């Protein structure tokens, strides 16, 4: 009755539904973050392009793009899983999922994959628009891909945790504003941490968003503030820890099955 085939169909169905869910409101879930990213790019590059050069031979506008892409990717990956779960909980239609034979691992993979897909899609849109007027090399495409997948996965898992834990929309917006937004703004999207005082450089290195953005930027320019391998290790470690917590939460039925 429960076979590998039924489990694959079940997981694929949930993934498809999650993808369709954000695609149905693409104006809000894709167009809005892409426009926000492009606006950041236009304003900061206009103001700082002629005054600032973070990496030698790299114009500021080009330096900015990887950070903006990664920031949007992370925020949208988080939004996908978290908003889906909180809406389903508040509306009550989460029961349709909980009554099914989908296991905690199936739920985890489907929500995670949909989050990564939305994050990468939004990031790719920003990239494609940006390269129309800014020259942007790609030195290490595999690094780009790895950081995009791990970063999207990390934030997708974090979104599941937030979606399961929160009972109200205001709790969820606290996650978005006080955790994600603050950490991404202080992660080096707009600057290199070498431009900060030493103490703040140390603080920045406690921020996981910094490693995701710095490693992702390395994929474009082959230059970074810290070793890309160290960044990869930190991001992978955070991904594993958050995935472990997420799976434990889903398995126990915490705030879902009681």
């Amino acid at each position, binding site marked *: *009755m*429960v*076979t590998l*085939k*039924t*489990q694959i*169909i*079940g997981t*694929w*169905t*949930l993934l*498809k*539904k999650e993808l*369709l*869910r954000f695609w*149905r*409101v693409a104006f809000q879930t894709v167009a809005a973050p892409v426009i926000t990213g492009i606006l950041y790019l236009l304003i900061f590059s206009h103001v700082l392009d002629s005054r600032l050069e973070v990496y030698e031979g790299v114009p500021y506008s080009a330096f900015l793009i990887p950070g903006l892409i990664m920031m949007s990717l992370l925020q949208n990956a988080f939004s996908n899983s978290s908003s889906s779960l909180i809406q*389903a909980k508040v*509306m*009550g*239609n989460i*029961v*349709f*999922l*909980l*009554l*099914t*034979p*989908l*296991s905690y691992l199936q739920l985890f993979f489907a929500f995670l994959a949909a989050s990564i897909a939305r994050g990468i899609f939004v990031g790719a849109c920003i990239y494609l628009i940006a390269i129309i007027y800014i020259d942007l090399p790609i030195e290490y495409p595999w690094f780009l891909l790895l950081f995009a997948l791990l970063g999207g996965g990390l934030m997708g898992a974090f979104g599941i945790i937030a979606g399961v834990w929160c009972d109200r929309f205001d709790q969820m917006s606290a996650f978005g504003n006080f955790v994600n937004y603050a950490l991404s703004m202080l992660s080096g999207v707009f600057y290199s941490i070498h431009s900060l005082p030493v103490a703040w450089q140390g603080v920045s290195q406690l921020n996981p968003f910094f490693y995701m953005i710095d490693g992702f930027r390395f994929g474009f320019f082959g230059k970074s503030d810290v070793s890309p391998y160290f960044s990869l290790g930190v991001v992978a470690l955070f991904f594993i820890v958050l995935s472990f917590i997420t799976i434990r939460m889903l398995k126990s*039925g915490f705030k879902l*099955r*009681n």
Partner: protein
Amino acid sequence: MKPAIVYKNVKKNYRSVKAVNGISLSIPQGEFFGLLGPNGAGKSTMINMLGGLATPSSGKISVMGKDVQKEYQEARHLVGIVPQELVFDPFFNVREMLRFQAGYFGKGRENDKWVDEVIDRLDLRDKANTNMRALSGGMKRRALIAQALVHRPPVIVLDEPTAGVDVELRQKLWSFIKELNKEGHTIVLTTHYLEEAEALCNSVAMLRLGKIVALDTTRNLLKKFSTKNLMLRLNFMAKKSLPQSVKNFSYVESDGAFIFQLKKITDIAEITEALKKSKIEIIDMQTVDTDLENVFLKLTGAK
């Protein structure tokens, strides 16, 4: 043949509240079973535990022999639950929702024909491509029932399915559910409409404060608690001059009428004869049978 559903000494505590307090129950396959009780009796908690929406504090529950916790995937394939609240996913239309729901159970494209059949049988064809948000309450209720059926479960549980539903739709839903029962599905129903339970259910469990206070076939339950009553409307001065032989019967006065509880059918002749002798005129006379509602009120202490 394994029972459709078994509860073995099941308890569910929410902190100090004992929502379900040691329930044991076995529902045979093919049964049309009613779960009755006042609000807070534990009916929904029992259903939630069956579907994995809540975890029992102790005890075991199985569906067709499959433990709902240890073999939860197999168990959930075997049961379709219609939730009490009118919940829906606002992003999709009826057909999409039903296909997704079937997909979660591992049903692929080959199941689309059945999805269409469910849509037809529940009169949802005109609304199949309508967003769930745009449906009326009655239509949403049909869509909820359809969602519980898309994976063809042998056991169907309906938690207050006709709450807030108009008479016409209620009749349609019941004839559809009766058909499913005839086709071999086990039906478990909770309802506040006791006349429905009486008309539909072969067996009934009555709950109060998380415990079963009666569990039997509907017929036996009615027989066990049956009392025939005689309702009489008498002339104006009757109350003061009721003869002692009539007063010896257990009776209550309600809305200007006397309701006598009969032990045997010949009591009617005895009462009317005594009244006639006392020259008390009978204006109206009626016998009243016990219904499930009386049994329910008696057993659950509800008012």
